[in-house]
């Protein structure tokens, strides 16, 4: 089964019912009529009703993507850019587990809860943007050295939360680290190692690492 099909199966009917829709169906509603009526035809109103080409600013570059208005950022990253950015994981799909955490303008957010259309023009960073070529970021290095993972599925989300914290506050104390990572779950139970790794990464950043 392809990954996308697995995801669709997992999502079941509900999200699909919401995510489908625009495209083919229905003439203009009262809502869209109102928008049309009120707008200068030449204006750049975004009244996305069907698939639309947008440009997402991701990891320092610009990625074209065809998204529907209901497409989440997570879906866009994983399935609608080329090549797909599958480092950002779908697990719960409802903002509870943190596996889909990305940075938007430097702030950690759940990509499963964001509409892609809402972050056009914002600076998005994913786990793929942390390393510089083969050179891991200090946070990534510390996760390796401190065994901050077991199965690894939650790791991209933890890396992004930790990066978001340390870039803002490299001297974060243990309590601040725990708070900053409280929106990420590791079901393997590696949190103690993760906390050590983030503390170590903070030390390196303070000492002038990248």
């Amino acid at each position: 089964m392809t990954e996308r099909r697995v995801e669709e199966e997992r999502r079941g009917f509900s999200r699909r019912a919401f995510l489908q829709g625009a495209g083919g169906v229905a003439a203009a509603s009262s809502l869209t009529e109102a928008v049309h009526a009120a707008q200068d035809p030449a204006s750049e109103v975004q009244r996305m009703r069907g698939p639309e080409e947008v440009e997402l600013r991701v990891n320092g570059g610009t990625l074209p993507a065809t998204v529907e208005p209901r497409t989440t950022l997570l879906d866009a990253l994983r399935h609608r850019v080329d090549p797909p950015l599958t480092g950002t994981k779908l697990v719960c799909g409802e903002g509870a587990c943190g596996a889909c955490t990305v940075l938007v303008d430097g702030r950690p957010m759940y990509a499963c809860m964001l509409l892609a259309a809402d972050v056009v023009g914002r600076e998005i960073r994913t786990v793929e943007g942390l390393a510089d070529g083969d050179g891991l970021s200090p946070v990534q290095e510390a996760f390796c050295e401190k065994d901050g993972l077991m199965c690894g599925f939650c790791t991209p989300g933890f890396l992004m939360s930790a990066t978001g914290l340390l870039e803002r506050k490299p001297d974060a104390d243990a309590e601040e680290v725990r708070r900053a990572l409280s929106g990420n779950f590791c079901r393997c139970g590696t949190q103690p190692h993760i906390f050590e790794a983030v503390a170590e990464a903070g030390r390196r950043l303070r000492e002038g690492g990248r």
Partner: protein
Amino acid sequence: MSAPRVTVPRSLDEALAALAGAAPETLLLAGGTDLMVEFESGRTAPRDVVSLWRLDELRGVRDEGGGLRMGALTTCADLLGSDLARARADVLVDAAAEVGAVQIQNRATVGGNLGTASPAADLNPVLLALGATVRLRSASGSRDLPVEEFLTGYRATARRPDELIESIAIPARPAGERRRFRKVGTRRAQSISKVVVALAATLADGRFTAVRAAAGSVAPTAVLLPSLAAELVGQPPDEARLDAAARRAARDDAAPIDDVRSTAAYRRLVLQRVLRTELGALAAGA
């Protein structure tokens, strides 16, 4: 029902124009921390959606008459980073710190807490206790409503289909007002509340002169607790009086239910004890 559409206005004027002819059941999407979960679960049937997230006109906090005016899209993280918010509405910032985790705090908005009107929305009891007002805006004008009139029931509000929440105002702090906030959840971070309590009260010459309290997750929506004021105003904060006030408010002002997170009996008992504890701390000057 016809197919869902998401409209993504880029300015307040565009949003108001879109809402001017909106179907009554059109949903307004702010930070999505509640609605996106509803969509995922299928509990909310697909409907027309207007996403407000890009409306930067609705962000930010500013002074207003010694109080605080917040744009509807002001996030919990915005509040946590604002010295003005801390100075003017300390308990609201305390509450924002207890909402979800960092990823949620970066998205959850003051206007969204009100608009979604969940009984468990953590900011709403605080807004009630502080006497906040909601400014609703439509293409034809704006109006202000006290939060207790805005919240009309379970996930129900006084917002008309053509309106959006533009901003929320908290009046200047009355001289000497003491405030408390307490959230009880399953764990410290990322939990949906079982009980939330917010208190604002003043004492003079050893007696309560004003008491305004509210609670969340104990009724169909966030509610004021009028019994506390009825029991306490004009009275000294002695132990027996505080006991009686907490007991009466938990009995008369709350209407909790059994659900996945807790039971009605537990919520009522915890409400009573949390009220009693916080009243004690407030009377002691904490």
